[in-house]
């Protein structure tokens, strides 16, 4: 299927007195994103965004596989496989790969999430042939040998220590996810438990690779300085030869609704107490996501947010207080994070968090607060489209998570439609006492 869409979004929900000087409010805030989307016969989804701002191309190959496709005992496999993708394939060996990228002026890296794994390259536009050849090579003929795995396993252990075991913030997030999600695969960390990392074997990773690294399970996003007609022919020629292979359906255990408060605590050598108050939210793109996003923004985004105002500014008991609504493909997390000043107990702060969440349930946001929350969301959206690499990332993520990149811009009007009553409704639906988890990181000797 070939579909060509030029999306022009007008950020009209900002329209109002502030736009009076603009002849056409819609025009004043318009963004053009001319994307062409199509699919090869083998199922590879392609998104092309021609943009000649700089003589560079951002080349993203994302696969629909993440830590939620694992099971206990092999946690972190998707991430480990991401590492092995840089260890060489049939045509380009591991050291050759790095050398080639460097000497051709290409930046390259990758990341793994709960739902997907992304590989990206930022290249001078005349290096497109090389990059396409390299990506097809490792999509089709990755080498996974014991020797490379032995060394890379140690690298990943160090990554885990750096991100989690030796990092209080990482520890608290990991414990929060494993507390809120008990049955679903969002329970375990993307990087995996250390005991599992230590026992990865080539066979397991090979199975992961052969199952998920197929064209029909990938989204290719190319943004930047190229000719659309020419690159389409090239994509067909290079990727079109790869075979379609059936991918098993992603069947994950659903997280049952939470009916009692969960509590978890961690004691480490830290100077101050930090805690998260977390709730099961909704998946990315869910109809309630927009109201929950605005609830989180009013509660804890920005220095004038409700929590920052009370905990950091008025009471002066915390060094930071924030809130977020984090959507994944099959679930979501609504969370409040507070870091106390060293030496202070968390009880008063926790009461204030409870009180502010209670107020969200009891009283609608003022129109001024609602407008501010929408503007923060919109400004964040615009800031996220400043480079070709950022545009490619946004397109790839939206395509994978929601099934259509067009939702990237369709989201904006949905925030405009959210009313104060909607925010109050979702607060009452998702942010109740029996639905929350209290996860605490405190100094080893306990709180004062």
């Amino acid at each position, binding site marked *: 299927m070939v579909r060509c869409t030029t999306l022009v979004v007008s950020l009209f929900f900002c329209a109002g007195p502030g736009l009076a000087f603009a002849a056409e409010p819609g025009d004043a805030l318009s963004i053009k994103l001319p994307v062409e989307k199509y699919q090869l016969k083998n199922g590879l989804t392609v998104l092309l965004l021609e943009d000649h701002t700089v003589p560079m191309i951002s080349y993203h190959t994302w696969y629909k596989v993440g830590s939620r496709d694992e099971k206990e005992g092999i946690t972190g496999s998707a991430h480990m496989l991401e590492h092995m993708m840089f260890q060489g394939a049939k045509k380009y060996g591991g050291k050759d790969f790095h050398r080639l*990228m460097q000497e051709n002026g290409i930046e390259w890296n990758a990341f793994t999430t709960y739902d997907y794994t992304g590989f990206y390259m930022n290249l001078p536009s005349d290096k497109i042939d090389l990059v396409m050849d390299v990506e097809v090579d490792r999509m089709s003929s990755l080498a996974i040998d014991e020797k490379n795995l032995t060394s890379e396993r140690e690298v990943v252990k160090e990554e885990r*220590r750096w991100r989690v*075991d*030796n990092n209080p913030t990482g520890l608290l997030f990991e414990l929060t996810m494993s507390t809120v999600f008990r049955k679903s695969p969002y329970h375990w960390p993307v990087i995996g438990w250390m005991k599992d990392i230590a026992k990865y074997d080539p066979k397991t990773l090979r199975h992961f690779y052969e199952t998920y690294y197929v064209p029909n399970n990938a989204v290719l996003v190319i943004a930047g300085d190229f000719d659309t007609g020419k690159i389409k022919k090239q994509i067909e020629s290079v990727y079109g030869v790869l075979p379609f292979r059936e991918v098993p359906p992603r069947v994950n255990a659903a997280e049952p609704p939470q009916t009692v408060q969960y509590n978890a605590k961690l004691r480490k050598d830290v100077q*101050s107490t930090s805690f998260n108050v977390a709730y099961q939210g909704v998946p990315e793109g869910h109809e309630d996501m927009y109201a929950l996003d605005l609830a989180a923004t009013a509660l804890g985004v920005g220095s*004038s947010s409700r929590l920052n105002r009370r905990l950091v500014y008025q009471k002066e008991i915390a060094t930071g207080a924030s809130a977020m609504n984090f959507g994944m493909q099959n679930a979501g997390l609504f969370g409040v994070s507070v870091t106390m000043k060293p030496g202070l107990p968390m009880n008063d702060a926790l009461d204030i968090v409870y009180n502010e969440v209670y107020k969200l349930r009891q009283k609608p946001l003022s129109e001024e607060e609602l407008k501010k929350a929408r503007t923060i969301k919109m400004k964040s959206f615009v*800031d996220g489209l400043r480079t070709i690499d950022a545009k490619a990332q946004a397109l790839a993520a939206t395509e994978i998570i929601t099934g259509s990149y067009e939702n990237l811009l369709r989201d904006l009007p949905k925030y405009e439609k959210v009313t104060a009553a909607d925010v109050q409704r979702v607060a009452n639906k998702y942010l109740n006492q029996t639905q929350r988890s209290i996860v605490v990181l405190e100094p080893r000797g306990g709180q004062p």
Partner: protein
Amino acid sequence: MRTLLLSSLSLSLILGAGCASKKTSPSAKTVKSSSGGMMDWFRGSGFRVRPYRIVTLKNGMKVFFIQDDSLPRLSLQGLMKTGLRDEPTDLAGINSMTAAVLDQGTTKRDAMKLAGDFNALGTEFAAGPGLDGTFLSASSLSTDADALLELYAEVLMNPAFTQKEVDRTKSQTVAALRRKVDNPSGYATDLYELYLYGAHPYGRDTLGSLATVNKIRRADVIRHYLANYRPNNFTLAVVGRFDANFERKVAAVFEPWGGREIKKQTADVPANPEQLSLRFVSKKGLQQTQLRLGRIGVTRDNPDYLALLVASEAFGGGFSSRLMQKVRDDLGLTYSISSSVDARQAAGSFNISTFTRNEAVGKALDEILKLYKEFAANGITEEELKSAKAQLIGQYPRGIETADGTATGLVLLDFYGRPLSDLADFPKNVAKLSLKDVNAAISRHFTQGSLKVLVFGDEKAIGTQLKAMSPETIRL
């Protein structure tokens, strides 16, 4: 938080070498677009440094105007040319505190009103105090440009500095200083800077110390502001979707701001040690050990700056660098290792940064030191030179892809007294470096004196691995 001005910006690479040349600024100058040396490298692409216009106000404030209509956005990026190095030693942290209190109330609005008004535009006033200067920025949708300009100018020109807000900021700063140890990576870098620079201001934390912060009074903050936060010590870049009328508004808003003579402080940078020296800071319970190695390096205007950038790119700049290939890929001793050249107004530093498991500290250090000795003694190879240059030139357009990136590059070149044409000439200047040039620079800067090594880990877990290096041990 300690922030190294420029160090996190890819654009720092563009600030090339050569003798500083301060030119008298015209009151208004328009540069339509600048291709310079880029044309040799991106021939036929039409790629240019965006056009910009420079206006110098009567009070000495320089303004860059850079238009970009691609998104409905406007940003105000300011650089106050005062940083940590301009602070009195006994008031270390005064610049950071002044920057932090700026948006905590003005003569018209209190702190929360101001915060709410910035947030209503979808933004925050961001203050980034660094070693040499202080970034002060905010951005909004272009439809809110007038409101943003009003708020931004109000914060810069009419801060209230009330006793209440100074006290509140001091309390937050003390808490932040006490919590630093909870971030092993950042804390290790702080410890390393202190070890490398000793009593020189660059050795201090940008926030100051518990002792000095507690001594800072409201009058000190006001004095620091009046002496340094002046228009003739400030450069502003106006970037994004705006028109000529908005340019006039910017000039009109800032014209009343009064200038004054700015006094700069100087301090001697310590020499590199004759022998390798190691400081071991031990903290119980650390699950991993942080390693920092380095030496005093060059100033921004050193003629070898670009050659050293190329050298560092080959040694520890990316996945195919010597450090990464050996220490990570071959030996599996770390997840990340890199080298960097951090050039500043006074002598900057050459740094190697990594971390490893506690039981492998000795081996990791041995391997890094072996690689360093080889690098310092024999330089890099022709193949490495070619590859490093390709990477720096190949990624160069991304640094100025956005109008904000271009603005940052121009403002910083101006700050360091470099010709603004360096922004366009970066690819040409890198390309013309020969192997002889780069290895001669390595020889000039790495053969005299040795490294300082900072290890931050758990003494009990590391055991005797460092014994042969006779470390100076500090226990937290």
